[in-house]
């Protein structure tokens, strides 16, 4: 026992003070893109051409960037000759409605808390069953990391559980492959009502890099109603945590 205590003392306290304090993100972190549609003359469309997933669109009514499809690769930022797209360090970017993820330069409506009807049965705790429906294991890893001492998800009353029957909802990653569709539906059905669905990552929101493949269903929405969208490929753990806490009304009131 002594050696464990010595090790604990050596390694110190590891939990970050989020959300009381701002998180420390890497210097080169690519957070929520900022679209400055006014700068875009609307002719060259190079951003749309380089985008791997069709997240950027230039149409008659201007420049739009769909965060739900975005892989945060930064290709559009590099390509744009007039700096109309810039990746900021903003990590607050989850949304309750799909349309809120489409950025056109007017700022973003981040996720609102669940309404009273849903909150009552939840109380202050949230138990989630995670379902990987074709995710590459990066979204999963950065969801799982929330349970480590660094983020200590338990202190917010959020917990990942083994059985869907013990869960208040599911947290889905991956584009929903044809082969995982039945298991996803069964898991959802096993969760008692009322229940919520959280889509984490570009795949789960709109198919990610796999959008349009016949082997996948381009995201959870084609199969189940989604209550919270958390963009990224993968989203930084802080982005996921921020989204979950907004949903519970712990922040963003």
């Amino acid at each position, binding site marked *: 026992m002594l*050696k*464990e205590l010595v*090790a*604990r003392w*050596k*390694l110190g306290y*590891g939990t970050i003070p989020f959300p009381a304090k701002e998180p420390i993100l*890497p*210097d*080169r*972190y*690519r957070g929520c893109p900022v679209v400055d549609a006014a700068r875009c003359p609307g002719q060259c469309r190079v951003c749309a*051409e*380089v985008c*791997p*997933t069709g997240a950027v669109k230039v149409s008659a009514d201007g420049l739009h960037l769909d965060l739900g499809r975005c*892989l*945060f*690769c*930064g*290709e559009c930022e590099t390509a744009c000759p007039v700096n109309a797209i810039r990746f900021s360090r903003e990590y607050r970017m989850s949304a309750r409605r799909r349309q809120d993820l489409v950025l056109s330069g007017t700022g973003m409506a981040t996720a609102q808390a669940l309404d009273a009807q849903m909150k009552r049965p939840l109380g202050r705790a949230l138990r989630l*069953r*995670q379902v*990987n*429906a*074709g*995710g*590459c*294991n*990066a*979204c*999963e*890893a*950065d*969801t*799982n*990391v929330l*349970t*480590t*001492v*660094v983020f200590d998800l338990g202190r917010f009353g959020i917990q*990942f559980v*083994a059985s*869907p029957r013990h869960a208040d909802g599911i947290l889905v990653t*991956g584009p929903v492959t*044809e*082969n*995982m569709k*039945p*298991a996803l539906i069964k898991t959802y059905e096993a969760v008692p009502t009322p229940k919520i669905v959280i889509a984490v990552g570009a795949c789960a929101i709109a198919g*990610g*890099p*796999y959008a349009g*493949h*016949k*082997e*996948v269903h381009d995201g959870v929405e084609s199969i189940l109603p989604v209550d919270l969208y958390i963009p990224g*490929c*993968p989203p*930084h753990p802080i982005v996921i945590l921020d989204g979950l806490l907004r949903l519970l009304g712990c922040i963003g009131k």
Partner: protein
Amino acid sequence: MESKRLLRAYNSCPVGLRDIPLVSISEFRETLIRNVAQGARLAALFGRPHEPNTLRVLAVLARGSEGTLFIVETEVSDCYPALTVDCPQAHWFEREVAEQWGVRPEGHPWLKPIRFHHSYRLGRDAWARAATEVIQPSMTDFFQMAGEEVHEVAVGPVHAGIIEPGHFRFQCHGENVYHLEISLGYQHRGVERAMIGGPNHRSAHYMETLAGDTSIGHMTAYCQAMEALTGYTVPGRAHVLRAVALELERLANHTGDIGALAGDVGYLPTAAHCGRLRGDFLNLTALLCGNRFGRGFVRPGGVVFDLDTNQAGILLDRIGRIYQNVTTAVDLLWKTPSVVARFEKTGRLPRETCEELGLVGPAARACGIERDVRYEFPSGTYTLSHIPVATGETGDVFARAYVRWLEIQRSVAFIQEQLEMLPCGPIRVGTGDLPPERLVVSLVEGWRGEICHVALTDAQGHFAHYKVVDPSFHNWMGLAMALRDQQISDFPLCNKSFNLSYCGHDL
């Protein structure tokens, strides 16, 4: 390797498609069986459609002791005598060929789908299923055992924790596992097929996400292939930065694995510390490129982000401190007899089985086999700086954990050494169009083992075929064998000691 009718090749050195010897199926079988018996290993075996009615089956043999690869092809129509009977290494490959192209390897002892999708050739199906039939995952015959007190346990695809989906069937007698059968394919997203006709603006993203915990490994393999085909020379500085990223990927995953192994035997101090330290390594990758998994760092021609002296200093300083902490956390394990006792003799894989199945990575090294791409088929910086191969002896959970620990030590030393002498110069060159009708085999030692990509170009210089062999493709059967005669309750521990990729297998 005496046969003239094998094309000699090297890691990331392209060959002409027309130079690949096309031999009869009997010669093909005989050549592969003989060479594998003499110590070569099947790195890849796959079908590619040729004429509308013929399928070419191409084999890449790897002879690690010489650092050479050998390529040979044959042509088959509806069926051919299975290789697996005489060369067990071919077993999973032949199931893949059967599933993808509707060709039957006759006599294959275990011919079942591996990913559960329709054949790529309309009207051909190895199991005579109609094109309209709905194919459901894991709907196949499972090996079964009968008798008193014999029972079957089925687990998955949705498991208890946050892990990828797969289905496991255990044939048990009491607690004892006689046999485990693993059925995958739930993660199948059609990566290889989507690569055909490329490269295009999605290709890099497929590579970075086909196994998202190995983004650097697979992306480096892809870039090596592209650079070899186009003949561009990557600047030395880029090679070093790639190697640093590859070793960071190994460090993060190995540290996470050791922590998870501790967690599986209920030893929480190491589990908790390593869970956090794994993230510290991921954050070092994020220091390089902004993304914890290295997305957007490696691109054909080099790397996208440079590391200035100041940043290199920060990285060195942080890696030193993280390493100290990992040492503290991992030492706890080795000093706790109850943990070591749980690791020892659990999930033991005999060296012969490992050789026979052609396993790779830490799982193979834990059996005492010196198999490591960085040593056998070095490319990039590894041709100049060597990392000693870490091996174990006992082939059990302990050895697989200990090999990871040795590799952590060596990767840290390697990164420190590399950053001390980071070459000057550019970090990226432009690459041009791909030449027509070439083939290249690109090998990289990912943290799970050998990553093998084979790219073939068509007459227009587009990908005619793109084969990905994730190390997990070789190793899933290793896990199944390691479970034999174990307690079923040891499955999580054994599984974690392999920690294989589902999506890397399913593609």
